[in-house]
């Protein structure tokens, strides 16, 4: 169980309050107007922003000040998810050991993760030799070997076309099921949310609201969301 307790984030003149809980196995879309603080919220969860006040707990453990790598989270960013000077295999391997010294079992893990996202025969390619969709798959293969209970996605497929994006979202949903992970995914597209999310956290007017049932929220949006969706 992820618990945000009276969390207060500040950045320059911008501030955000959050008080909510979320559980393993849920896929939650984080939605709201631009500049409302969706990415800021994910940054704080990922350990890239020290909160002004409040606490973050995971299964009762306080992780408010835990460094990013020690958190129970894997993260896929908006861009720069792969080291462009390393091969797909190496990028995935870094998810297991930062020094890349893998034993036989770990090597098998990397191979099976790459197979799982359909990139077995491209393991030795560098990102520049992969398409946008394939690059996203490498990042997801790394998420798979990291095997963390929480998955944070910050609009990772925004640059992809609709069909490819749908394909990647389905892959995310499958991986989340495999890992029994809690997924928090920033998106500005209601169809993305509708496709895989069971719940939505609405971020608006300085507030991150507790998750609400996705379909009913989209069918009957409150004023803040309605203004955003148009």
């Amino acid at each position, binding site marked *: 169980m992820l618990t945000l307790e009276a969390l207060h984030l500040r950045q320059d003149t911008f501030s955000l309050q959050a008080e909510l809980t979320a559980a393993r196995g849920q896929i939650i879309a984080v939605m709201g107007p631009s500049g409302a603080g969706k990415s*800021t919220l994910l940054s704080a969860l990922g350990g*890239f922003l020290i909160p002004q006040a409040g606490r973050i707990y995971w299964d009762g453990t306080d992780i408010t000040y835990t460094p990013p790598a020690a958190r129970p989270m*894997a993260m896929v*960013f908006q861009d*720069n*998810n792969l*080291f462009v000077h390393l091969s797909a295999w190496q990028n995935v391997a870094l998810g297991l050991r*930062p020094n890349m010294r893998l034993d036989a079992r770990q090597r098998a893990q990397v191979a099976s993760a790459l197979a799982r996202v359909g990139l077995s025969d491209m393991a030795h390619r560098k990102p520049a030799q992969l398409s946008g969709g394939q690059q996203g798959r490498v990042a997801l293969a790394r998420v798979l070997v990291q095997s963390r209970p929480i998955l944070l996605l910050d609009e990772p497929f925004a640059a992809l076309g609709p069909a490819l994006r749908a394909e990647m979202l389905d892959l995310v949903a499958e991986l989340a099921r495999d890992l029994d992970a809690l997924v928090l995914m920033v998106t500005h597209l209601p169809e993305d949310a509708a496709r895989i999310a069971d719940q939505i956290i609405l971020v608006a007017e300085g507030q991150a609201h507790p998750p609400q049932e996705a379909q009913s929220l989209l069918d009957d949006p409150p004023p803040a969301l309605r203004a955003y969706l148009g």
Partner: protein
Amino acid sequence: MADRSGPISARPHWAGLLAAALLLALGLGSLGAVLVWAGGFGALSNADFAALRFTLIQALLSALLSCVLAVPLARALARRHFVMRGLWVTLLGAPFILPVIVAVMGLLVIFGRAGVVNMLSGFWNGPQISIYGLSGVVLAHVFFNLPLVTRMLLHGWLAIPAEQFRLADSLAFTPRDRFRLIEWPMLRGLMPGAFALVFLICTTSFAVALILGGGPKATTVELAIYQAFRFEFDLGHAAILAVLQIALGLAAALWAYGARAPRDVAQGLDRTRILLAPAGLPARLLDGVILGAASLFIIGPMVAIVLNGVAGLGDLTSSLWPAILRSMAVAMAAMLITLALAVALSAAITARPKLAWLFEGIIYMMLAVSPLVIGTGLFLLIFPVIDPVSVALPITALINAALALPFVVQVILPAYRQSEARFGRLADQLGLSGVDRLRWVILPRLSRPLGFGAGLAAALSIGDLGVVALFADPSQPTLPLYTYQLMGAYRTDAAAGAALVLLGLTLATFWLFDKGGRTYADT
């Protein structure tokens, strides 16, 4: 969203703190030792004040000439398109890594007593010039710094938006209007900094004065320290002179810092955009003459070294080889130390933006400290413990590393910042820290600037004739010191040969590292 304000991962950055502490210890520690030894002020003689006066005059003249001459040269380069222009701009970077003794010997071939200029002048019964004393010191400093200032100004010219020149054309500006309204504001912004930087470099320059100066009329403070140390064996006198030099260097550095002196002197000028140039024949002729004269001045001495040196190669004895080995060993050690310090400090500056001013200030201080002052200080500190001569080479490497640092940081820091902005979070998320981060992120991302920086540090160290002259064993010289000894013994041909070897070694080393970095980056 750019929210980089408070990463939890901010580690203490011990390496950066350690590097800064080492630099402070080098600077302040040697200063402290010198102060204790000097035992108060008041021991300065008239000759010392003459040295101070000479130092100021030659530095002011050198800065003035370098800046004034750089304006037409940079403008000609900015607006003319000619064959091998790229090579020309690259050559402007060469004097920066050219060993002082090599350049000075080249200048002697051209401007010396029996040099080309005097020969031509004698042929027409003209006057004879002397390169020793003030004119020689200023000439050599202009040789080193004119290209430096030209590169800075060329940067400035190329940074003026092309639209401004098009606008000027459409408004039928005269060349005077163009200069007054477009080019002068740019120059006014850059000139004070460039002037102050050259002034600073010239106040701490030692080898030029060692070779071309001397005597009551042409001794710099640095040279006076050397003489007090080496010939008078008067450590107290050397110490009080060192205090004088430090005051001078710090004042000049504060001035340069306040004037926002550009420090990216080692950066490449990849942009080749050519400005719209006035097409009239007089203007083209003028630019042609300027470029031709500058070519002779900058390339002439290098060509002279090659021509003279080839003949002298046969006069070299087998003691050349150990000198080469010593120089290379010192240069490799200095290069490694510089890179380690530069990476550690870049990491600390990037991770701790609030403390950046402190780190950058300490690095900048290395421009102001003179190698002879640090050398003197370290000598005073260690000679009660061990024979300083026995550690002359390691100390030379350390001091060379510290002196090259400001230039190398200037190359590495922007690339480091870029790499962190792009991959910092990903690396943090994956727990890449310490050696792992170095191995998998920093070295591959920074291989180009690291290669360039390594070449720069190694080249500067190979050619160094500063600390090593202060307390090396004369029977175990580095290559520049060996060359200087040959010169002093009037073995002119052998000296020219050694200078050619030194030139080749310096350029080859720089080229190899720079090329290595590029090659690695492209794989």
